[in-house]
């Protein structure tokens, strides 16, 4: 921030930082002994973060952190795709960038495969034929089953991973921060997680372990209060729920928490909408600098120069005053571009130029008229001379001159003379007029140079002459070249983070974050609301604006009953805590016999790709068999999709005989529920 003369004004230039390529790490022996260590990947739509889950000190932090983009120019081979930090500057390749995400869900698994290749190669994995390490991966809340199926297929078929675990990034972050703060379970709370494409409201209810009739049952807190009591049988996980009486409330002991997925909500406004909004605002304000206003610079503006107002209207009123504006506006200095501001001339200068052009045109016209007048005059004299010949009686000479003039008879000569006389008269009159009054016949004059090509050429040269005296005006204070290349970012600093709370700013009809929170809370009983609101947890990259926490506290104060208690906490590292949480979870729940939360190869083959093993930081899994799409090469698809219903349906899924590489489901799979 350089301070200029006079009042404090902040002139800042863009960093335009370039990324450096990631190093290739060596696979350390701690990652292989005694069992292969899990690889933790936080698959975000903005950034992918990867690292190991070992207790070794030097491997306890993130190893890889890169943008989830891949760039491949058309016609280049697949191996020439640049990923993540291999691209030093995103802007030249902006139109070639592809991401595997559509909103916050992975849809393009070819690019996901490239990203996995990148991660595994940089982590130093060189085992043949398979990746021997379990993988912990994040997914979207309520991830579509098809996407999970494709992801599992990619991991199990292509990389032959032994175990996979899926979880929600906001929940991992919650888990990590609870562990950091050594909070005792039950962990009940509501998570506001705002990422790059979407923001989520995730209520988390602690669950209790119930023993009844010798079977270990897991009781859902909400169900207890609702007294409808759908319990899950722990012994046969993920079979469908069956009802029990409410005696479950009598014998309770706390274990851990589960996401209350029925009441989750998602607002489709987050970081990417904020940066594109900021970009459009600045481009509309400075149409001359269209190409300098790039998305990377917008992200830099949002990360470093934006803030959230605690009270939006009050803050906006402050921006009305010019002194506040002068103090708080951030002037972003762009580099000198050398092109002249064509649209930047003021109205007076434009009028000046127009008047000058008019004068030039008039001068041309006057000169033309004079010339024509002279020509007509000469011709008239000649014709008059010929006529005199005729009057004098020198018929031979008369006829000869008639032939010269290309005329047939004396009458023609006479009419011609008359016409010329009229024209000369008019010309003389016009000359008299134009000398005196200017501007009256402007409109007429405009038509005339159109006919004459010379007039246009003359006008162009005059135009350039006009430009040259313009350049000498640069030194004058009316046009400041440095200021022309500055972007004044004033209220935009405030408006762009605000779209999270008021999506109507960008025309979205959805509720904002706090209104959605109110909506979600209204679905619970007052006791539950108290429990949830006493632990509001903020996480996600988009939450990092200064003033966000105060704003949320203030809005909560407005929506909660008078003098009720609430507590808002922010993640210690909002963008990275999801990865650390996933790592903590992986260290505490290693894949082994318990297999709570892990999907093994066998599970994948038996239960299909969409199977999810639930754990404290995962989505809820509703057992449903979906059709496995057939790859393009096969002859006929004969996959039937059925659902697994309550008690005793035997389900068979039949797949056609496919290539060995793609068929993972065996011919007949029967799943019998108890």
């Amino acid at each position, binding site marked *: 921030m350089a301070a200029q003369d006079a009042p404090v004004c902040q002139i800042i230039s863009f960093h335009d930082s370039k990324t450096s390529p990631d190093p290739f790490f060596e696979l350390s022996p701690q990652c292989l002994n005694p069992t292969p260590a899990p690889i933790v990947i936080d698959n975000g739509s903005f950034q992918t973060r990867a690292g190991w889950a070992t207790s070794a000190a030097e491997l306890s932090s993130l190893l890889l952190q890169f943008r989830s983009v891949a760039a491949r120019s058309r016609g280049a081979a697949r191996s020439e795709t640049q990923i993540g930090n291999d691209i030093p500057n995103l802007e030249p390749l902006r139109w070639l960038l592809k991401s595997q995400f559509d909103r916050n869900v992975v849809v393009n698994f070819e690019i996901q495969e490239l990203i996995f290749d990148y991660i595994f190669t940089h982590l130093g994995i060189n085992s043949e*034929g398979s990746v021997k390490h379990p993988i912990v991966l994040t997914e979207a809340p309520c991830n579509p089953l098809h996407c999970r199926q494709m992801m599992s297929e990619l991991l199990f078929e292509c990389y032959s991973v032994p175990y996979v675990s899926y979880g929600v990034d906001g929940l991992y972050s919650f888990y990590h921060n609870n562990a950091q703060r050594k909070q005792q379970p039950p962990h009940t709370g509501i998570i506001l997680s705002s990422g790059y494409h979407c923001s989520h409201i995730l209520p988390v209810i602690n669950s209790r372990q119930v023993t009844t009739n010798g079977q270990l049952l897991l009781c859902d807190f909400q169900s207890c209060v609702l007294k409808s009591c759908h319990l899950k049988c722990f012994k046969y996980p993920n079979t469908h729920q069956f009802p029990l009486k409410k005696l479950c409330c009598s014998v309770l002991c706390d274990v851990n928490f589960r996401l209350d997925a029925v009441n989750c909500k998602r607002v489709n406004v987050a970081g990417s909408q904020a940066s594109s909004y900021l970009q459009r605002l600045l481009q509309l304000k400075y149409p001359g600098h269209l190409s300098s206003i790039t998305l990377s610079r917008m992200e830099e503006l949002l990360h470093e120069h934006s803030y959230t107002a605690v009270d939006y209207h009050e803050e906006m009123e402050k921006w009305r005053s010019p002194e506040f504006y002068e103090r708080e506006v951030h002037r972003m200095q762009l580099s000198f571009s050398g092109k002249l501001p064509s649209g930047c001339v003021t109205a007076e200068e434009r009028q000046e130029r127009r008047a000058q052009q008019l004068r030039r045109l008039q001068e041309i016209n006057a000169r033309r008229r004079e010339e024509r007048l002279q020509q007509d005059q000469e011709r008239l004299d000649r014709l008059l001379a010929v006529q005199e010949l005729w009057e004098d009686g020198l018929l031979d000479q008369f006829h000869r001159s008639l032939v010269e003039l290309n005329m047939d008879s004396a009458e023609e000569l006479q009419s011609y003379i008359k016409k010329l006389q009229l024209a000369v008269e008019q010309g003389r009159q016009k000359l008299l007029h134009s000398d005196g009054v200017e501007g009256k016949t402007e409109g007429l004059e405009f038509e005339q140079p159109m006919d004459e090509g010379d007039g246009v050429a003359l006008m162009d040269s005059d135009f350039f002459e006009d430009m040259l005296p313009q350049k000498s005006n640069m030194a004058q204070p009316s046009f400041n070249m440095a200021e022309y290349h500055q972007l004044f970012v004033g*209220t935009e600093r405030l408006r762009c983070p605000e779209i999270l709370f008021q999506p109507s700013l960008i025309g979205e009809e959805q509720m904002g974050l706090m209104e959605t929170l109110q909506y979600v809370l209204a679905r619970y009983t007052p006791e539950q609301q108290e429990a949830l609101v006493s632990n509001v947890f903020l996480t996600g990259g988009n939450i990092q604006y200064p003033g966000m926490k105060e704003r949320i506290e203030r809005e909560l104060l407005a929506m909660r009953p008078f003098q009720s208690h609430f507590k808002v906490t922010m993640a210690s590292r909002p963008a990275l805590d999801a990865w650390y949480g996933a790592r903590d979870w992986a260290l505490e729940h290693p894949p082994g016999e318990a297999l709570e939360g892990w999907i093994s190869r066998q599970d994948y083959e038996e239960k299909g790709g969409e199977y999810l093993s639930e754990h404290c930081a995962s989505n809820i899994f509703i057992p449903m068999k979906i059709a496995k799409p057939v790859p393009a090469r096969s002859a006929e698809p004969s996959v039937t999709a059925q659902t697994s219903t309550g008690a005793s349906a035997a389900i068979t899924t039949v797949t056609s005989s496919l290539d060995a590489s793609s068929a993972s489901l065996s011919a007949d799979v029967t799943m019998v529920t108890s």
Partner: protein
Amino acid sequence: FNSTVENKIIFKWHYGGPPATESTAKPPPFKDHTFLHSGIGGAAAGKKNRTWKNLKQLLVLERALPWKLDDPNYYNIDAPPSLKPAKKYSDISGLPANYTDPQTKLRFTSPDEFSYIRLLPSDVVTGYLTLRKATCIVP
């Protein structure tokens, strides 16, 4: 069945070549090279249509599954439309706006903004309206 899978992996082992250092041309050793995504195209698509389904198409498929009323899935958890009326802000400065220009339909707060709006070229005006999704769809 399992034996065939193992055989395939061992098969790859022989032909994988020495692990050595990674070179850009050589594909990474830890994957199955003949792996084909089953999500590309569909049965009827053939070799031409190798595009992935985008989110909208996936959600259409997902809706077709037999969900119960309460089950959470990706489109269920979308936040509903807002119940509160939207506040109006100036398109130029973002301050709370009380006035709308009848000619261009832009919102403004002060006479200076109004004169600025009237001097704007039409593409900038359309740009501001598109930002707010307020462009007129009447043909």
